[in-house]
């Protein structure tokens, strides 16, 4: 019995080893990421030292400033990416041409598709496994989950205000207003922050709303998110005041229009627990 089982187990162990190597599950040494959310995640799970190239719009953490910029979603600079000799490239799922190109060059890829909060937690864990930092990624996802749980616990039993969640608008006017519909990361954050999305019944991530739709929806609170962290206080109050024209909206009448600055609000990543807490604070100031 033992005579047969020893070679068998050796075989199985060998096969496992081969499969691990073949599927590229070794810890990558040189990573390029064109996805800002995942670049930030890589640093947060301790893989920052291995990151050699980042996307044009990556801003967090500050260390990304010292890495080579390799383009972004629409304009990845493939020559520069190949020049960095990466062994793992983090692409958007829609960058099919680039993924095929690097696959032909036998470079591994990790693809990212935009989704909800739960999807992002899953992405963090998978990225951890893929970069040999499963434990750190699991801890990060766990921290985010407990932050979300803490926010939910604080808000138990509180009424949920109807919220318009705006993430784009022509500056200084009420034109080209983009808001979150009933799916996606912004909608999930809003739900977790104790708000009821005023456009939850539209199954889209992004809606360009008419002024009429906003007047009729009559949200209790307007949360406007902007990635522009350098906006001056004067500009901020001027942007909030733009909403005054729609004075029949309870949010405007009751001075509950909030402008939240920072890319953590529009880009899912390691700070999404804190971002959710900040939204919750704007919606339920007396609970914090």
């Amino acid at each position: 019995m033992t005579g047969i089982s020893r070679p068998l187990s050796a075989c199985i162990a060998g096969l496992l080893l081969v499969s691990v190597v073949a599927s590229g599950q070794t810890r990558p040494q040189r990573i390029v990421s064109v996805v800002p959310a995942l670049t930030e995640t890589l640093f947060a799970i301790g893989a920052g030292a291995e990151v050699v190239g980042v996307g044009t719009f990556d801003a967090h953490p500050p260390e990304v400033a010292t890495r080579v910029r390799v383009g972004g979603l629409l304009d990845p600079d493939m020559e520069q990416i190949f020049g960095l000799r990466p062994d793992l490239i983090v692409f958007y799922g829609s960058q099919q041409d680039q993924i095929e190109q690097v696959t032909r060059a036998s470079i591994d890829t990790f693809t990212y598709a935009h989704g909800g909060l739960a999807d992002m937690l899953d992405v963090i864990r998978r990225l951890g496994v893929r970069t040999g930092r499963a434990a750190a990624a699991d801890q990060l996802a766990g921290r985010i989950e407990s932050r979300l749980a803490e926010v939910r616990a604080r808000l138990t039993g509180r009424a949920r205000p109807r919220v318009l969640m705006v993430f784009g608008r022509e500056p200084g006017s009420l034109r080209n207003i983009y808001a979150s519909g009933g799916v996606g990361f912004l909608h999930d954050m809003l739900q977790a922050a104790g708000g009821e999305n005023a456009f939850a019944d539209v199954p889209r991530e992004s809606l360009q709303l008419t002024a009429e739709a906003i007047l009729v929806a009559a949200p209790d609170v307007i949360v406007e998110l902007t990635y522009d962290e350098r906006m001056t206080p004067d500009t901020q109050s001027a942007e909030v005041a733009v909403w005054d024209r729609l004075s029949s909206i309870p949010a405007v009448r009751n001075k509950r229009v909030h402008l939240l600055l920072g890319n953590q609000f529009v880009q899912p990543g390691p700070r999404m627990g804190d971002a959710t807490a900040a939204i919750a604070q704007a919606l339920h100031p007396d609970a914090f």
Partner: protein
Amino acid sequence: MRDTTATLAAPHPATAGDLRTRVWLVQIGFGALAVVTCLVAPLVGPTSISLSRVFDAAIPFAENVDAQVFFIARLPRAIAGALVGASLAGAGVVLQALLRNPLATPFTLGVSAGASLGAMLVITLGVPLTLLGSAAVPLASFAGALGALAIVYFLATMRRQGLSTLVLLLAGVTLNSLFSAIILFVQYLADPAQTLQSVRWVMGNLDVGGYGPILWGIAPIGVALVAFARLPRALNLLTMGADSAATRGVDVLRTQRLAFLSASLATGAAVAVGGPIGFIGIIVPHLVRLLVGADHRLVLPASIGLGAAFLVVCDVAARTVLSPMELPVGVITAMLGGPFFLWLLVRHR
């Protein structure tokens, strides 16, 4: 419907009395069409509002949702649509006659590309939010239009041999390409959120969210329309050629200058208010020619009226079809206008 071709054929001779009656009828008819459309449009929408509530002075405006839907969300859009539609259609007629080219549009001479570049720069550079109490994007857009107008005008007149329509056309088309290239470059440098805003701007949008942009656009559009009123007779003669017009007593240079400047002013202001909304400036004049003939004393007022009514109707669709979402009005004018225009061409060939 008269069986005339959609070209710039010389007007049919008619007795003065006849013509005066027809001009009068066309002005009243198409003017009434525009006014009625503007009055009806705010009553139509995805939500039902009660007119008695809208005009109920007992309810404070700040609490009257119906009144706000009517006066903030719908009426400004109808007025903006009428102004923009009238300007683009009128500018289309004038430029087609000036350039003696039935395919000329308000966007042929680079003015709208200049306006777009102005808007793109403000959107991507994120420069001052408001200037003189008005949102920066329309102002920058109008400034861009004026800049383009000045460049094209300078090029067309620099040889001091009058206003060369050939140079005007070539300079305009070249400037269009050049500005489009700069716009692409500016968009390329912009971050994704700004790119989304600028791409959306190019599709046209009449959700002006108040009367500011309208009040502001009324002056240049009013000046342009007054100038248009002085043009029809001269345009009729100009379509037969500059020399021929000159022998019949037309001050060709003055007419060309007035036509170019007024059409460009109307286009620049219209684009600043509503973005570069396509097809109005070509489809409305041609449709009108099929209805009333080629005499500019009829075509110009009819196009201004029909252009206003057409864009107001398209904008009702823009805010209703996908409600609560906005459907870009430029997409609607193109989707309605393109096939309709082709149908007209095939039917009347």
